């Protein structure tokens, strides 16, 4: 999908600035990596759950900040 520059949509993980962490969402993938992250429709409850997930990952990232 990357080498062939397919521009196909896959549920891959990438950094999403608005969540401040890398998360898996349907994304357009091509030669340059993730070109666009799509935003599936979510209910309010789902959106809250997703934000909780982001917070968990942000915390993990902060914890691992010193890892080299």
């Amino acid at each position: 999908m990357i080498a062939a520059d397919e521009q196909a949509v896959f549920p891959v993980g990438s950094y999403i600035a608005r969540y401040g962490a890398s998360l898996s969402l349907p994304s357009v993938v091509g030669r340059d990596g993730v070109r666009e992250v799509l935003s599936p429709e979510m209910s309010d409850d789902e959106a809250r759950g997703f934000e909780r997930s982001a917070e968990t990952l942000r915390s993990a990232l902060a914890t691992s900040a010193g890892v080299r």
Partner: protein
Amino acid sequence: MTAAPNAVMLIATDPPDPLVDVARRLARHERVLGTGTYLDSLRFRVHLAQRLGVNASSVNRVRRRRAWHVERVPRSSATIGGTRVEQMIADRGSRSTIPPRRRARSPLRQYLDHRGIAQVNTALASSPRGSPK
């Protein structure tokens, strides 16, 4: 990085999402992506296909609305030939030696038992029955 500074990095090691963050921090660029829930989605599609006796390529729309480390998940909208997987399992239940609900959850239980929490939500999101037990 030195040999191929413009290369796209694909993270396939669990847990992929956190490791994407680590890799992009080390690489100091944004051309990093992880397999995320893609591989587990494919794996689960195979499970569903085997259970229902169809080719895995015929399992469609394995939506992933909650494959992101969350506690609760909705039902899958996976379909085969336009028919919800959930309905197919219910329809075929009488022809199986395994109760329909147990059949529906079996792949999920495999994930819970053998793959750990990072994959739980993938199974849940793809499960014909989305209720975690």
